[in-house]
């Protein structure tokens, strides 16, 4: 009967319910949208590492993220290839170049030179054409979402990156990095574009044979390559994300905007619940007079808050899902890991309970004697 009473009150007090609902939805939607952008950006940060299909990355020592390292010698490649348990080792060269767009202006792009695109570090999804198109020396890829930025070049169109002739051979899908447009090409073409010395690469990617003891093999790599850093792919991914997260202000700016969203939500919920309970003060006094304990009043108020939160969560997540659907294929970074949803829901419940504390205190003060006046 207490929860029914709460439900009836929530339905009856439409305007305050709507207000509190708005607070809950604001929290779910705003924080959820912030989170999806954050996770989208986090994905961008380590996109090349995460999709490299490698088990280990050999890079220059003392790197702080996957995008800034010294070049390392090709000699290491030979040492690694012969090891037991190593299936393949592939060099990767990453540099920057200016892409001449269709209208003659320039866009800075990140060029990724690879040797065997189907094995390591190549594009992972194609919109047009496929990895075979990349086998040619001059071939490069552009991502679908970057096409318009680059002047909408057509497939097979010839242009220049870093004054070097390239041909658009394939269009990738969902290949976007934190540092902008990613263009894949052959090792030699990227070396020309980035003007790096021969025989030196940004990283050597290693693929292990299935079934090997990965930790042991990684340790062995570290041991025989003391002048390099050896990371497992997930280690390097984490290192890179942490680096950008803490060094670009993304972490704190995200934290700040989330805090604001939560604060706005709490204030809205507090105010509306407070006014609603004030308007019900006499009802709570009546409930006390006819035998309700303080606890029973608390149950009603908390049930009200939980009911509103449940509906708010539903609507908020519905809106969030719609947003994610719309932004999923756009250039707005968005990614919402499944495990975040229950965390966000639990956080929202907590915050709306927090918001109803003031209201609860007012409701508990209802004096049964006041019904006689």
């Amino acid at each position, binding site marked *: *009967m207490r929860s029914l009473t709460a439900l009836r*009150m929530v339905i009856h007090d439409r305007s305050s319910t709507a207000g509190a609902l708005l607070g809950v939805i604001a929290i779910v939607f705003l924080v959820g949208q912030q989170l999806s952008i954050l996770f989208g950006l986090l994905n961008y940060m380590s996109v090349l590492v995460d999709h490299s299909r490698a088990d280990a990355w050999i890079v220059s020592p003392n790197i702080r993220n996957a995008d800034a390292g010294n070049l390392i010698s090709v000699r290491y490649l030979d040492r690694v290839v012969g090891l037991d348990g190593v299936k393949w080792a592939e060099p990767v060269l990453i540099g920057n170049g200016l892409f001449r767009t269709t209208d003659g202006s320039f866009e800075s792009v990140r060029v990724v030179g690879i040797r065997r695109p189907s094995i390591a570090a190549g594009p992972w999804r194609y919109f047009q054409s496929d990895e075979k198109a990349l086998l040619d020396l001059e071939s490069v890829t552009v991502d679908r979402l970057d096409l318009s930025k680059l002047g909408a070049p057509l497939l097979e169109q010839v242009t220049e990156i870093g004054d070097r002739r390239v041909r658009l051979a394939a269009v990738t899908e969902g290949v976007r990095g934190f540092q902008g447009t990613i263009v894949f090409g052959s090792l030699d073409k990227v070396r020309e574009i980035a003007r790096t010395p021969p025989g030196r690469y940004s990283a050597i990617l290693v693929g292990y044979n299935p079934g090997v003891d990965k930790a042991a093999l990684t340790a062995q790599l570290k041991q025989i390559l003391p002048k390099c850093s050896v990371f497992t792919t997930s280690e390097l991914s984490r290192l890179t994300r942490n680096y950008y997260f803490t060094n670009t202000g993304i972490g704190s700016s995200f934290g700040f905007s989330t805090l604001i969203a939560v604060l706005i939500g709490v204030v809205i919920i507090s105010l509306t619940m407070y006014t609603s309970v004030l308007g019900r003060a006499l009802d709570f006094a009546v409930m006390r*007079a006819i035998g309700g304990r303080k606890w*029973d009043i608390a149950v009603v108020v908390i049930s009200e808050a939980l009911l509103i939160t449940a509906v708010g969560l539903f609507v908020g997540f519905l809106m969030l899902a719609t947003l994610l659907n719309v932004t999923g294929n756009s250039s707005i970074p968005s990614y919402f890991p499944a495990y975040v949803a229950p965390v966000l829901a639990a956080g929202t419940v907590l915050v709306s309970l927090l918001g109803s504390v003031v209201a609860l205190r007012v409701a508990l003060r209802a004096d049964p*004697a006041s019904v006689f*006046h």
Partner: protein
Amino acid sequence: MKLVLEKIARDFSDGRQMRRVLFPTSLEFVPGELAVLSGPSGSGKTTLLSIMGLVLRPSEGHLFLDEREISGLPDLEAADMRLQKYGFVFQQPMLIEGLSVRENIWLALAVQGGRVPPEAREKTEDLLTQLGLEGTSHMQPRLLSGGMKQRVSIARALIKSPDVLLCDEPTSALDAESGQGVMGILKRIAVAEGCIVVVVSHDARVFPYADRLIKLENGRVVSDTRESYSPQKEDAQ
């Protein structure tokens, strides 16, 4: 069963000092009798009723229900007591908006949680019929007239067959006809069910329903008469 007040007194602070609003009062109430508590405004009627209803603590004295001392009960026990033994009718119907008529009545049974037993659902319909409210059980209180609402609040008080029924000016917000109706019901049902009924009122139209008339002035009982009351006597005095 008896409700016994033993030298009950109450002080209120009026900001600077304590003021005695109710002087030590001893009274005894028995079932099957409708007692009317009357007196001028500010004489302490509501204060006395609130103490009897366990929503206000006396400053002095003791209250017994059925030989058991019930003044000074801890908050939780007082609430249990009110739930189990008491029915209240207030000056205003004080129905909860949003709850239907019957849900308002059920709340009196299940305000501490739990479901409403099926017998109670039946009894609710019976009560509503007896009170001339058939067909209203699903309605929202705001759709009812003042007299109807007050009758719903009587149903809410009677649903649990209380030992003690306390009413504070139950007719003062009603027109004469509805007021008569309400008093008739209180007398008929409550007294027939054998509960202690105390009605606070300074409305002379209520007196004919009284089996006992207690008059309060300045916090003191000045008269307590059991003989059946007639308005002519008052005029003669």
